[in-house]
C-alpha cells in the first residue's frame, strides 16, 4: 500500500488511534497524508505529540482523546496549545493509564475496565460520562469504570514488517502500538523497510515481533516515515527540525508558512525539503 491507499480507507468522522509516544516513533508519513487529504471531523486517540498538533492546526480534528500532548524536548505542543486555547477542538482528557485501559477494554471486547486511576481528580468532572463501579466482592471500594475506546482505525509506524503485516520493533520500547491495533477495526502499519518474513528473525529475537498480521490490514513502506520523531535504532529524533517546527508553530502564520514549505507537497517533496533543511544546517 501507499500512504494514499491508506487515506482511501479512512473517512471523515472516524475515530483514529495513533501509535508511538510524544516525539517517539509516530507514523508521521501517514499523518502527513491525512494533512494533504480532505478528511475532517476526526476523533484522535494518542499518547500525543506533533501528530496531534499538526492535525489540529490543519483543522482535521473535532476531538482529541489524550493524557498528554508533548514534543518531549519542547514540553508544550504549540499547535495543540493554540487549538485548545481557541476552543477549536473538544477533548476527552484521561490519565495515561486510563487511556491504555480504554484501548485494552476495546481490544478484549469489554465495555469497561475498573481502575483506581481518575478517582478524586478532575478527570471525573471533565468527562461527565465516566461512571464508578462498586467491588462486587464486597471490599466496599468504588472504582472508575473506564469505558472502552474502540477505534475505527489505528496507525502505527515500526522498523520492519513483512508484506503480510507482521511488524517488528527494533527500538527499546513498543509503546502501546499493539494495544492500539487490538482496539481498532482496521490497523494500517507503516515501516522503515518491508522485508521477507524469514529476514525478520534472522538477526533479532522473535520478541521484537509485536504486531501480528491478525491485527494488521495494510502495510506501507515509509523510509524515514516517523521523521521528525525518533525511530530507534534507525534514527533519533531530529531535534533541529523539531525546534524549527515548534518555533514556527507558535503563531498561526508561522505554522501556515511551515505547512507551505514542508507539508503542501507529496511525501517525497517533504523528505527532499527535510534534506535541504539538513544541508542548510550543515552549511
Amino acid at each position, binding site marked *: 500500500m501507499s500512504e494514499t491507499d491508506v487515506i482511501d480507507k479512512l473517512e471523515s468522522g472516524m475515530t483514529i488511534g495513533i501509535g508511538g509516544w510524544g516525539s517517539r516513533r509516530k507514523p508521521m508519513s501517514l499523518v502527513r497524508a491525512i494533512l494533504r487529504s480532505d478528511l475532517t471531523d476526526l476523533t484522535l486517540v494518542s499518547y500525543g505529540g506533533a501528530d496531534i498538533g499538526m492535525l489540529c492546526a490543519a483543522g482535521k480534528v473535532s476531538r482529541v482523546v489524550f493524557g498528554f500532548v508533548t514534543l518531549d524536548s519542547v*514540553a508544550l505542543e504549540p499547535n495543540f496549545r493554540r487549538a*485548545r486555547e481557541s476552543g477549536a477542538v473538544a477533548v476527552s482528557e484521561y490519565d495515561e493509564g486510563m487511556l491504555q485501559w480504554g484501548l485494552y477494554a476495546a481490544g478484549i471486547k469489554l465495555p469497561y475496565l475498573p481502575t483506581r486511576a481518575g*478517582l*478524586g481528580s478532575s478527570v471525573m468532572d471533565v468527562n461527565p460520562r465516566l461512571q464508578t463501579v462498586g467491588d462486587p466482592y464486597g471490599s466496599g471500594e468504588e472504582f472508575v469504570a473506564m469505558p472502552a475506546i474502540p477505534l475505527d482505525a489505528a496507525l502505527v509506524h515500526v522498523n520492519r514488517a513483512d508484506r503480510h503485516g507482521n511488524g517488528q520493533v527494533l527500538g*527499546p520500547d513498543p509503546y502501546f502500538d499493539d494495544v492500539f491495533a487490538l482496539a481498532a477495526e482496521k490497523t494500517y502499519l507503516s515501516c522503515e523497510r518491508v522485508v521477507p518474513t524469514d529476514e525478520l528473525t534472522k538477526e533479532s529475537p522473535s520478541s521484537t515481533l509485536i504486531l501480528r498480521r491478525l491485527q494488521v490490514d495494510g502495510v506501507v513502506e515509509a523510509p524515514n516515515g516517523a521523521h521528525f520523531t525518533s525511530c530507534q535504532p534507525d534514527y533519533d529524533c531530529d531535534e533541529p527540525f523539531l525546534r524549527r517546527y515548534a518555533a514556527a508553530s507558535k503563531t498561526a502564520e508561522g505554522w501556515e508558512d511551515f505547512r507551505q514549505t514542508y507539508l503542501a507537497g507529496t511525501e517525497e517533496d517533504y523528505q527532499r525539503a527535510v534534506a535541504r533543511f539538513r544541508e542548510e544546517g550543515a552549511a
Partner: protein
Amino acid sequence: MSDATRAEVCAVACADAFRDNGEILASAFGTIPAIGVRLARATFAPDLVLTDGEAHMVQGSWAVGARPPGPVESWSPFRSIFDLVWNGKRHIMMIPTQIDRFGNVNISAIGDHARPKVQLVGVRGAPGNTVYHPTSYWVPRQSSRVFTDKVDVICGVGTDSARRAGAGATRFHELRRVVTDLAVFDFDPDSGRMRVRSVHPGVAPEDVQDASAFELLVADELTETRTPTSEELALIREQLDPHNLRAAEVDA
C-alpha cells in the same frame, strides 16, 4: 558552616524524601530531584531502582543530562511502568504548575478546562500515580502563583479530594513531601493540610508563608533543612552534576 548552595540543599532535601523507601522505583522529574534520587541511591538508599528515562532500569551513578553508562538491570518500557504504578512499588516526585493546601496539583490547564487560558502538558499519569503509590512534589520556585488557593484542574489528587472520593482513592494514597527552593513540607495526617517541616538555611519562616496564597501549617518542631555532608557535596559536584545544571533550576 557549610558552603553548600541553595540548589545543593534542595538536592539533599529531595534525596531525603526517598530515605527508608526500600526497594522501589524512584521516579524524579526535574534536575534537582534527579540529582536527589541518584544521591540517595549512592549513599543511604542503595536499593532504589532508577530508569534511564527511556526503557531501561540502570545501575550506577551518572551525571544529570548525560546518558547512563549502565549496566542495564532490567527492561522497563512504558507498558511495564504503568503496571508498576498500579502495583505500587514506586515513589514519584513531580513538578506542579499549581498546588493547593491539600496537595491537589494541576499540570493540565490554566483557566476553564473547556477552553483553557493556557494549555499545559495534560494530566499525564498524575491521577493514577497519586492514588496508587507515594507521591512527592518539587517546586523550583515557590510563589503564591504555584502555591495557589485553588487549582484549576485536579491532576494529582490531594488529601481532601481522595477522602471525598472514598476508600478506592484513599487506600494507597500517600502524599509524602513537597520540596521547594525555600522549605520542605509534609501533610498533617489529621487535617490533610500542607505543613512546613523545615526551612532552608538563609530563609525566614515568614518568607515561606509570603510565597504562598494559602495559610501554611507549621510543624511543632520546625527545623532548618539539613545541609549536605561533605561526602554528599563531593558526589553532587564531581559526579552527579559536574556541569552545575542545578543552578539553572535554583539560582541561589
